[in-house]
């Protein structure tokens, strides 16, 4: 019974649960993904857009849903709940209760005939009850699994569906079922519950129709939502002209017992305001009422700035006291106090930015699992073990560990996957099946038979481009034998349909006209592969990102352009050839650059998973930023002790090779096969082979030039203050702390995220060691997000004074005959105040490591405008780079707290494991090929190839090493004999793409 099991149970199928499942499944573990709902997807599926990129939420989530749904190592257990857990880390015995769905999932094809005919209408909870669904239903069109379910409570048992179902899938005799499984570890990702706005009676939710919650508002904004994306007032269906957003509803509210900050609401409110404003054809005013705008994440402040400048969103710093209604018009009056003056303002509509609460039935879950909850009933975790619950072998990620936004949930999910893997590393590969595709059909002798699938993408494409016309047009193109439209070509049912059509019409080339190949090509390639086609016999026409979205008001022209784009791709598709993917051997060794807490954690995780790691640190000593830290918020955690323990674990682990005082000088190769030269300060060099790279180069503290810093020892940074306190040298009667020094200014518009937290920590410490000392904190916004809000409250209760300043009235620090004087504007009494502190503490910005530029160039990865590393996708790939095999964690990504760095480091290790755990990887088939008959051996291509992938063979002719070739095609463009064929981007194909469009333009 004590044997370890190479399987993991993931509880909760939101974006975090899905990410954790995918990472585990891709690293050789069996996954059971459990969700209470009938589909996976969680809250993210309900959102309209996501900040700060305004990506459509469903568009980026759907491919993940599909991948999870069809992954051979992931078993979805939906509409079910966890009943009992026994055993311990390595071997848990789980009992799951499956609720009857009354539909046989094996048989249901998701055709939807049942729902069309079902006579019973029920409020649709997916649309927050603002629309109706049937008693037999799927929660949303992209649901995975796309299997209907009967809502027993509302079903009238007319059994029409049973008779009508062509697959005979309806089964009214289904009974609850218990399922028993064995797993080695458990990951909890049950998400959160939105705050119930009824409890905030003063805002009138539930009484006043035009007061809606933010999640209702998301559904209203959504094109596939209850009103087709049109925002109307529930009171009278009129279009609002003036919308107010009230922040912190259910958060930062001691009366309700929810003192914590929900961490994501400021940003989503800005997003909602920007998007409604953008979509409204009439003038619309949006005002956000807030206490502090907490835009602490990557590039969030830039988004906030744009909202104010470009979009003209109003921001009012005030907690709204109450909302009243004019019952005749449904208009609302907001009563609030701004700068000590009571005010009242009329709005058409009010959106309440609801906070996050622990998921329903959390006590039962905790009891079942034997894990501890914190005082807010979220999962209890620690600074140095942010992904671990109180019970070994059970891990947590996402909002259940504390309110957080999507990228952080995703990073934690990967991190929890790494933790789960470490326990059962020895069982890797034992319970899984390889993804198998049917044998490839040989199409070399066939005439091209092209199928064109045009996606409506809900209304994203369909409301601008006349899709039926495009389909009709596609049918007229040479070699097109089949064309159709789909509501969402990427949904699971449509994918199945595409595969079916391929077989039915014997298609041998497929063109999907939808969004961008940059995100969706891998998914569709897999689909054609499942239908027995070579994955390269597929192309995408980008009629959304590069057509319907950018020509929203020119329907006819956009339709014509969509036709052009389809013609262009069909012309290319006719010339497509099946390609072989070369396989790459993987060196199962990692390289971690940077030996701070993030780098050390990543190295340890990889080692625990069984991989060898090289850890390179530029400084003489491991520890990075943490070396300067003397105490934490949590009173009894001693960071230096922790650091020592971690450093010791790293040094003693025989799988980890540590190089201190060393630098990476160059990196060659590619995913699976990197070769890196490391140079020690002694001048000694070493070359190492490795399969992946994790960048953990940290960040540095800004050295202020303002407020007399450097000219007077009484003016110091937070770090210097911490040092003084720790040494017992701190003495002062009055301290002034100035926030945002070197951040949120013109030069560096973004927030450094951690300084507010640091300020609280040090202010509390001052109050602890010297309770009489007066502490003033001058701030722009206090950004103690999540549970850190408690420390803000504690500081305020202990008498720390917080004074808000803005850019027009910055504090001034002068030295008057040896006495420090700080002058600042006090907004409450509306007067300048002057005090004479003994010490002035500056919360200095966190800047990117100056080495980033060099490292980025070596690794061919991008940086943000500020100089931090830029991940592959801000929302869903927070620790990946677009370059395969290179990952990112810690402050190299953005300033962050220790727990966040640790989560990301574990995440990077999990992502790396998806590669290191494989013996071989499939490389891209899009490589250059040299025609020996045409090559004259001139060597131009050899000199031009940036990867040294071309060499002369024994006959003096050029030959491409397919594994080294990255497919840029530069050689093909420079060959004087046109002897080089760049697969998938051949001369012929590219020229044909142009001709198809231009001939069409000239001739009609």
């Amino acid at each position, binding site marked *: 019974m004590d044997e370890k099991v190479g399987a993991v149970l993931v509880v909760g199928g939101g974006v975090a649960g899905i990410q954790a499942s995918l990472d585990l499944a891709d690293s050789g573990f069996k996954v059971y993904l459990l969700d209470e709902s009938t589909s996976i997807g969680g809250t993210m599926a309900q959102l309209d857009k996501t900040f700060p*990129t*305004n*990506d*459509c939420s469903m568009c980026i989530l759907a491919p993940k849903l599909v991948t999870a749904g069809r992954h051979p190592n992931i078993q979805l257990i939906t509409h079910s709940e966890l009943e009992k857990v026994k055993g311990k880390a390595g071997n848990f015995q789980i009992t799951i209760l499956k609720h009857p769905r009354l539909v046989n999932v094996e048989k249901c094809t998701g055709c939807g005939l049942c729902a069309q005919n079902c006579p019973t209408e029920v409020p649709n909870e997916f649309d927050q009850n603002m629309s109706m669904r049937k008693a037999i239903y799927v929660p949303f069109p992209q649901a995975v699994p796309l299997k209907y379910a009967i809502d027993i409570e509302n079903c009238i048992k007319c059994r029409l569906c049973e008779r009508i179902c062509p697959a005979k899938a309806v089964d009214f005799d289904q009974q609850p079922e218990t399922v028993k499984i064995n797993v080695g570890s458990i990951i909890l990702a049950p998400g959160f519950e939105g705050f119930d706005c009824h409890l905030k009676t003063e805002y009138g939710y539930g009484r006043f129709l035009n007061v809606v919650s933010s999640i209702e508002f998301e559904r209203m904004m959504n094109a596939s939502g209850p009103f087709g994306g049109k925002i109307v007032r529930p009171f009278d269906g009129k279009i609002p002209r003036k919308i107010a957003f009230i922040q912190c509803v259910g958060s930062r509210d001691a009366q309700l017992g929810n003192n914590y900050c929900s961490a994501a609401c400021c940003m989503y409110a800005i997003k909602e305001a920007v998007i409604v404003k*953008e979509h409204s054809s009439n003038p619309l005013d949006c005002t956000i009422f807030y206490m502090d705008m907490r835009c602490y994440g990557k590039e969030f402040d830039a988004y906030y700035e744009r909202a104010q400048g470009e979009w003209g969103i109003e921001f009012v710093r005030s907690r709204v006291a109450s909302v009243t209604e004019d019952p005749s018009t449904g208009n609302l009056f907001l009563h609030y106090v701004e700068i000590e003056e009571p005010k009242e303002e009329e709005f058409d509509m009010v959106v309440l930015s609801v906070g996050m609460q622990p998921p329903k039935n959390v006590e039962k879950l905790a009891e079942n699992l034997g894990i501890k909850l914190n005082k807010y009933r979220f999962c209890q975790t620690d600074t140095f073990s942010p992904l671990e619950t109180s019970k070994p072998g059970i891990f947590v990620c996402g909002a259940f560990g504390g309110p957080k936004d999507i990228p952080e949930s995703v990073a934690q999910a990967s991190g929890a996957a790494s933790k789960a893997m470490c326990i059962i590393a020895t069982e890797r590969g034992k319970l899984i099946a390889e993804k198998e595709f049917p044998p490839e059909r040989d199409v070399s002798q066939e005439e091209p038979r092209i199928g064109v699938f045009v996606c409506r993408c809900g209304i994203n494409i369909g409301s601008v481009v006349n899709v039926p016309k495009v389909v009709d047009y596609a049918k007229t193109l040479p070699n097109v034998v089949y064309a159709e439209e789909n509501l969402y070509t990427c949904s699971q049912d449509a994918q199945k349909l595409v595969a079916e059509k391929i077989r039915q019409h014997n298609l041998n080339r497929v063109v999907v006209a939808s969004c*961008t*190949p*940059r995100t969706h090509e891998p998914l569709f390639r897999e689909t054609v592969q499942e239908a027995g086609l070579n994955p390269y016999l597929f192309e995408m026409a*980008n009629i*959304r*990102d*590069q*057509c319907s*979205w*950018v*020509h*929203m*008001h*020119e329907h006819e*022209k*956009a339709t*014509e*352009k969509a036709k*052009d*784009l389809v013609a*262009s791709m069909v012309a290319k598709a006719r010339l497509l050839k099946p390609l072989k993917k070369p396989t790459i051997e993987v060196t199962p060794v990692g390289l971690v650059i940077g030996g701070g807490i993030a780098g050390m954690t990543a190295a340890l995780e990889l080692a625990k998973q069984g991989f060898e790691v090289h850890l390179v640190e530029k400084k003489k000593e491991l520890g990075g930023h943490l070396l300067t830290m003397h105490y934490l918020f949590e009173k009894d955690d001693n960071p230096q002790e922790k650091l020592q323990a971690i450093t010791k674990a790293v040094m003693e682990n025989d799988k980890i090779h540590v190089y201190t005082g060393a630098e990476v000088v160059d990196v060659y190769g590619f995913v699976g096969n990197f070769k890196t030269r490391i140079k020690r300060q002694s001048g000694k060099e070493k070359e190492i082979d490795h399969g992946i790279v994790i960048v953990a180069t940290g960040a540095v503290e800004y050295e202020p030039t303002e407020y007399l810093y450097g000219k007077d020892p009484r003016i110091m940074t937070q770090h210097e203050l911490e040092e003084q306190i720790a040494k017992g040298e701190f003495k002062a009667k009055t301290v002034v702390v100035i926030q945002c020094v070197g951040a949120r200014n013109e030069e560096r518009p973004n927030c450094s995220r951690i300084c507010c937290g640091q300020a609280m920590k040090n202010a509390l410490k001052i109050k602890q060691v010297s309770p009489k000392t007066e502490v003033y904190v001058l701030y722009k916004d206090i950004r103690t997000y999540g549970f850190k809000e408690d420390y803000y409250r504690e500081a305020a209760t202990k008498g720390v004074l917080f004074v808000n300043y803005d850019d027009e009235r910055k504090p001034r620090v002068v030295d008057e005959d040896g006495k420090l004087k700080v002058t600042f504007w006090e907004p409450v009494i509306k007067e300048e105040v002057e005090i004479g502190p003994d010490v002035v503490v500056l919360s200095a910005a966190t800047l990117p490591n100056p080495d980033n530029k060099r490292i980025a*160039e070596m690794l*061919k990865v*991008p940086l943000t*405008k500020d100089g931090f590393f830029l991940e592959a996708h801000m929302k869903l790939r927070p620790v990946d780079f*677009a*370059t395969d095999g290179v990952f990112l964690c810690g402050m190299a990504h953005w300033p962050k707290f220790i727990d966040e760095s640790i989560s990301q480091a574990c995440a990077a290790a999990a992502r790396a494991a998806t590669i290191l755990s494989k013996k071989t990887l499939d490389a891209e088939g*899009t490589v250059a090929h040299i025609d020996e008959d045409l090559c004259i051996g001139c060597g131009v291509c050899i000199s*031009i190839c*940036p*990867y040294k992938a071309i060499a002369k063979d024994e006959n003096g002719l050029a030959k491409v090493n397919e594994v080294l070739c*990255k*497919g*840029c*095609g*530069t050689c*093909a*463009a*420079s060959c004087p004999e046109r002897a080089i064929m*760049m697969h998938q*981007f051949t*001369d012929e194909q*590219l*020229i044909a*793409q*142009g*001709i198809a*469009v*231009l*001939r069409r*333009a*000239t001739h009609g």
Partner: protein
Amino acid sequence: MSDEKKFEPKIIGFLCNWCSYAAADLAGVSRIQYPPNIIIIRVMCSGRIDPSFILEAFKDGADGVLVAGCHLPSDCHYISGNFKALRRVTLLKKVLRDFGIEPERLRLEWLSASEGDRFAAIVRDMVEEIKKLGPNPLKAKEVEA
């Protein structure tokens, strides 16, 4: 000529996958509107763009061609493809007139993946410019003949 007013230039854009095509996608994601006169052909790197593709496009009647890659010096995903594109396009511009094409019809731009707004601005600008230049002279000749 009333036709002149209605002249809608046809522009072919050769964009590299990593930065410039991503910029065009970002323009979409951010819903930045620009005129629908451009059709984008995706290549992996601007270094893939053979001058003959550009000439071919003009021969087939393109009124303008945009070549875009990642920023110089070091943004190219393939180390230095953008430099090669720079060299090729600069040379081609010198000889374009010999083919009867105004060099202004060919543009080379560097775009980062975060410059959706700039991509849209470039297209807007090109469309304006080319409207002033009128239709591709080769096309006009064809009609005359």
